[in-house]
């Protein structure tokens, strides 16, 4: 077994996991605070990628990198204010139906506007090239993306743990009724969290666009993975989602080295194992009926 190659596969797996994490974090936050399962979350990831393609054509990748997630976040805010907030107190099935329908509408709109063929986006020229350390070789762009994604996750953590805004969010997750009784309006917090969570999905779309090709169905592909991350990590837990993503990444990297055909299945097997041993997920809230 050659260690360099195992290491490369594991780093690669972690990179993939970090994308899943960006999408899963938003999904988890929106669910924890609003009780809404956002099946359209992957669609925003796809929108982020398509915006990147268009903005890069007009103004370069650097502009697209900043503008695209912001635009997607604003779109998320609009969706939340117009539609999602009607479902906070309603039957969860309704929000599922709505977000499911939304995801299909978005996918078809993308297909109508841009066509079904995958669109190419070249890696920006200042980010091309590979890092060589002995036998270890890895593209600069991927390392850069890893850095950006980790920074985004760290910033989210900081926001949630160290700011007054984060305090309200955590209180809202734990006991929303008390927060309202105390007199803090949750509505603007919900809007901000939705915008942020969806913006993170958009950011993942921006980062991945030059690598995996932009096509209308890319949203549903990543959504499944994001759900698995959230389920393994446990609903309502920031660190749970982070650890779940890391576990999935390392597992995938190792499995792909020894048994490549099983690499896609590895995260589902992991999910089954975790749910069997610990039904609430790694760090989710305790659910008495299941344990």
């Amino acid at each position, binding site marked *: 077994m*050659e260690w360099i*190659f195992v290491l*490369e*596969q594991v780093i*690669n*797996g972690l*990179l*993939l996991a970090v994308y899943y994490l960006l999408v899963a974090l938003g999904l988890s936050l929106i669910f924890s605070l609003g*009780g809404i*399962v956002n*099946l359209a979350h992957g669609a925003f990831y796809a929108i982020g990628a398509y915006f990147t393609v268009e903005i890069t054509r007009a103004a370069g990748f650097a502009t697209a990198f900043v503008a695209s997630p912001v635009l997607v976040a604003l779109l998320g805010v609009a969706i939340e204010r117009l539609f999602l907030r009607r479902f*906070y*107190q309603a039957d*969860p*099935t309704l929000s*599922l*139906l709505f977000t*499911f329908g939304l995801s299909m509408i978005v996918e078809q709109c993308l297909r109508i506007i841009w*066509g*079904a*063929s*995958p*669109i*190419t986006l*070249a*890696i920006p020229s200042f980010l091309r*090239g*590979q890092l060589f350390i002995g036998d270890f*070789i890895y*593209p600069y*762009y*991927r390392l850069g993306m890893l850095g950006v994604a980790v920074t985004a996750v760290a910033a989210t953590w900081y926001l949630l743990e160290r700011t007054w805004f984060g305090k309200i969010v955590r209180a809202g997750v734990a006991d*929303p009724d008390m927060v309202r009784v105390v007199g803090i309006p949750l509505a603007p917090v919900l809007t901000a969290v939705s915008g942020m969570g969806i913006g993170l999905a958009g950011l993942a779309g921006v980062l991945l666009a030059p*690598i*995996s*090709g932009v*096509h209308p*169905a*890319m949203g549903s*592909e990543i959504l499944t993975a994001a*759900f698995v991350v959230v*389920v393994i990590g446990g*609903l309502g837990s920031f660190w749970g989602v982070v650890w779940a993503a890391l576990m999935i990444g390392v597992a*995938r*990297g190792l499995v*792909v080295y020894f048994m*490549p*055909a099983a*690499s*896609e299945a590895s995260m589902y097997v992991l999910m089954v194992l975790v749910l069997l041993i610990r*039904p*609430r997920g790694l760090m*989710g809230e305790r*659910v008495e*009926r*299941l344990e």
Partner: protein
Amino acid sequence: MKKDLTRRRFLKTAGGAAGATMLASIGAPAVLRAQSDVIKIGHLAPRTGFLGPIGDYAVLGVTLGMEEVNAGGGILGRKVELIAEDSVNPATASAKAERLVERDKVNLLLGEISSASGLAIAQVANRTRMLFMQTGCNSDELRGKACNRFMFHIEATNTMYVKTVGRALLRQGMVTGKRWMALTADYAFGHDLLRVAQRFMGEHGGVFIGNEMVPTDVTEFSPYVLKVRQARPDLIVINLAGNQNPSFMKQYSEFNLPFPLAGGGYDTVMAWGAGRDSFAGIWPIVWYHTLDTPSSRAFTAAFIRRFGKPPENQAVGDYLGVKVLAQAMTELKSTDPLKLVEYLEKGAKFNVLKTREGYFRAWDHQMLFEMYTLTPKPKEKMADKWDMAEVSPPVPAPNEDLEVIAPTRQENPCTFA
């Protein structure tokens, strides 16, 4: 509110939603008309999924073909009508083919790209004694073990593709004594192509060092690129399909590895998807839009006028499907499927937009024609963003029999029961 949504409920409702999507994909029917003074073509192609982009061109090609036939007065004085359906997957393809034959009463079935779906449609065609002209399925198996008398093949078979690119590789000294590894799409087409590639390389002294099966829904190829790096082959043989080709090429070029690529399955829309910067390797093709024959130039110009972009190889397959059948029906003065089968088996010749005409072989219904190999064109010589490839002279050469690249009887165990 929070207490109401338990994990159990969440998983249940999400699972129900997923189940509903699967049913919904058997989707809405296309237009239905009950006249018998039209000739109805039932067209099936994957419009969604990893073959979707190729399916789009198939529909454009068949539309242009139909319009040209109608502009020339139709077939036997009757207008041609198209009922185009998304075949999605083998089960749906089978169901829709049945519906097209039984309910919509089409005169023939045309199209399909996925070899797995093609197999399903062929079974329906055989059972209902309806002619099925397939225009995009590459697997040898369809002309071989699974052949049947009502299916004809305008698309080249994997053996033809491999022999075409194989000749070029042999000329470049990339076969004998070379260590090669394969990346294979994990379904019917991929397995078939791998088998044919292994046979060719084995016959010519290539050294097989390994194969990686790639599930068809993989979009992240870096693990496989790293495996290639680990193996350090002399040649990488790509047996991927659809979207996977451009995704792989892009990610492969990211790592900038020096190992050459070659493949047996290629669609120009995929190279356009990868972009000139990532397009690499040597590939076989049935047709390319810069081909310089009068009929090819006319077709390309008509396509650009009609759709605003150049055609690619799949569009040609479906276009020719309509034109060939129109010519056959007109000469035969009949639309009876069995009569058409006998007529095509007699070796009627058709203009296939190349220097030589094409014809169907009687014993396996494979159409024989010239093919070409493609390599990336230097950027300075590109006339526009679609002009990414250098096209070789026709294979086989003008003085060789078209049978040279086709499967032999030994290689192809087809018997019509």
